């Protein structure tokens, strides 16, 4: 049982949880993640670690509502508990002085890009960060990213904040302006990481992406998270989650992540029907009553 010390929405559908997990807090390094399970019948899902406080023994995770589990998670409040949190999993990001690094965060991926950017800055790199979101409301961690970056560039798809466009537009401008870039780190939706990768491949700029395949155990035991790297199967949980972007087969990643789309839709529909039904006890209330204070209302999520 892992207690939620603090829960707060960063943006519509994106929530930050401060969770009591002393062992994980002591060990977490940038680039790593946790797997959690909310309740007994729940599935195990990988979730980004934004930060940790080894002294207080807490970790921060950032969750975007997408399917049933993330919706349920985002209904939990301060004082509730999560049944299982295990980690930190995956290999940490490679942190050393590369020179100039561009860190790209797309949507909720910004939460995972942030600790890496901070560590790269600490290691003496010049850090240029690019944060992209669909609209103004969904730009997260702007202040935090600014604090660890020599320059911060922001784009929104609809132009409701900062510059209209995509993160790749900003990256292309940097390249065209003759900025010497030694490394690009990109964390975000697959389509974004794929676009970044396509751009930097042409320019021959070493690029690292953090992959988010379907996972169960997170220790290499099940092989469900296998990704095709340079034509060979590798496991994102033990060999990754970060890989050389130019070797990643993004098509296979997209295809494998869609494997349970029908089940995920069914889960979500039944969940929503239950939450709205007057005659059945809502799931969120059930979990709240079991493990803490009753939770708030569902937030309509954004698919990242």
């Amino acid at each position, binding site marked *: 049982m892992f207690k939620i010390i603090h829960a707060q929405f960063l943006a519509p559908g994106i929530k930050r949880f401060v969770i009591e997990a002393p*062992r*994980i807090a002591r*060990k977490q390094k940038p680039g790593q993640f946790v797997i959690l*399970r909310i309740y007994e*019948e*729940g*599935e*195990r899902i990988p979730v980004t670690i934004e930060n940790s406080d080894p002294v207080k023994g807490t970790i921060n995770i950032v969750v975007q509502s997408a399917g*049933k*589990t993330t919706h349920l998670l985002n209904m939990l409040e301060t004082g509730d508990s999560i*049944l*299982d*949190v*295990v*980690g*930190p*999993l995956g290999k940490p990001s490679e942190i050393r002085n590369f020179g100039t690094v561009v860190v790209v965060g797309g949507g909720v991926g910004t939460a995972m890009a942030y600790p890496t950017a901070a560590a790269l800055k600490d290691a003496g790199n010049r850090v240029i960060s690019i944060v992209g979101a669909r609209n103004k409301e969904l730009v997260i961690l702007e202040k935090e990213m600014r604090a660890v970056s020599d320059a911060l560039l922001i784009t929104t798809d609809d132009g409701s904040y900062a510059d209209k466009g995509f993160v790749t537009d900003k990256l292309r401008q940097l390249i065209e302006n003759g900025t010497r870039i030694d490394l690009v780190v990109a964390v975000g939706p697959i389509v974004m990481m794929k676009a970044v990768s396509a751009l930097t491949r042409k320019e021959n700029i070493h690029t690292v992406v953090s992959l988010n395949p379907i996972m*169960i*155990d*997170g*220790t*290499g*035991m*099940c*092989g*469900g998270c*296998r990704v*095709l790297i340079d034509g*060979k*199967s590798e*496991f994102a949980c*033990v060999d990754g989650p970060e890989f050389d972007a130019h070797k990643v*087969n993004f098509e*296979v990643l997209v*295809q*494998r992540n*869609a*494997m*349970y789309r029908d*089940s*995920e839709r*069914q*889960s979500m529909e*039944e969940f929503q029907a239950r939450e709205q039904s007057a005659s059945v006890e809502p799931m969120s209330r059930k979990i709240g009553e079991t493990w803490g204070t009753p939770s708030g209302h569902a937030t309509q999520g954004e698919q990242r």
Partner: protein
Amino acid sequence: MSPTAAKSKNPLSPKDRMKVPRQLMPEQAAELRAHNFEEVNLGFSPELAQQEALRCLECAKPTCTDNCPVGIDVKDFVQKIVVGDFLGAAAKIREANVLPAITGRVCPQEDQCEGKCLLSKKVKPLGIGYLERFVADYEQRMGTHVVPHAEPTGKKVAVVGSGPSGLTVAGDLIQKGHKVRVFEALHEIGGVLVYGIPEFRLPKQIVREQIDYMRQMGVEFETDVVVGRTVTIDELLEEEGYDAVYVGTGAGLPQFMNIPGEHLNGVYSANEFLTRINLMKAYKFPVYDEPMLDLHGKDVAVIGGGNTALDAIRSALRLGARKAYVIYRRSDAEMPARAEEVHHARQEGIDFQMLTAPVEFLSDGKGWLTGARCVRMDLGEPDSSGRRRPVAIEGSEFDLPLSVAVIAIGTSANPIVQSTTPGLGTNKGGYIQASDETQRTTRKGVFAGGDIVTGSATVILAMGAGRRAAKSIHEYLTTGLW
């Protein structure tokens, strides 16, 4: 043959004992059980058990015990059954084996105790596994097993992994008075016993009962700890005050075949397929959230011939598969699965495609599996495993239509502990180096055993290693000598 008939409480002469037929295990009818997850074997009644026990020849030098990885005193416990002292029989087994209800169900007895039974020279061997299971279940039903308590020694041992070898180490050491804490990466205790072996072969309630018993003995468990990531071996020894660590992290990364199409949707590793079913209860979706592909009316194949392969394909059948194939590249004789499982699988209607191997998985062009292109094999000269090497027959290709394929061809070493423990020696395959006798590794105070040392093997071999390790850890803790 030298039965000690003089002292024996067995009323039958050795000759008459051999006339008693091996008692049949009552089981669920094949056509019924192929559609449910209830246990296949129903267990002996006291009468059946006593009848079977009468068959024991009470050899002066019992080869059954010699051939048991944990050295159970078979002759003694079987004689206790003859006289109706079932609890005494259970206590006798427990001296050597902390998980009798589990080994009675999953051991390959034909390769061990029963394989060396003197009876088998003339008639069928004694049903030692059935008898072990009977007394363990009897003891559990009576709720009378004694909880031993030893004088505390003040020493602390960390056990990494809660599978069969870790549980054995924990059970043995707690009885010596050491404090024992078991760390498990998953959210449930039991390792392969809960994520790997299905309900119809080993009900999870049995595993829980055995673990509850260990808790009563004082063993502590901590779930959600991936040793190497959440905490390192060095931290356990230096900061958390453990005097010794046992590494029993088990079967590692699933192997794939490296043939085209392995990344298609519909291709699973056996570990993933079984974990979804057993640990995550995906077959109860949507009551449980973890999904799996719907197998109703689908054609499913497993590739491989071990217990894991049979567990996977028999699960697929129970989940509604229309056709369920085992694709194995060698012949019946080389199949490593337990004989009883092969027998049960055939009864249930599993289609065994022997001397066959897939060379490619076929796709619908949209990323989904539609079949496997296979070749037929011939057996050539023996390979490094001593088994005859399969050789593809030219021009024998054929396509087998499939919706789901499960790859069960073994595992390779999981690197997490090794890569985070400086000075811990590994062998060529990346498995942890440990002494066959003492299970000591190259690091002082660190012991290892089970699949992480030997590669994929059986529950009982892992338990045997656990037993040797417990003995050697106790020695180390008592003498301080390395």
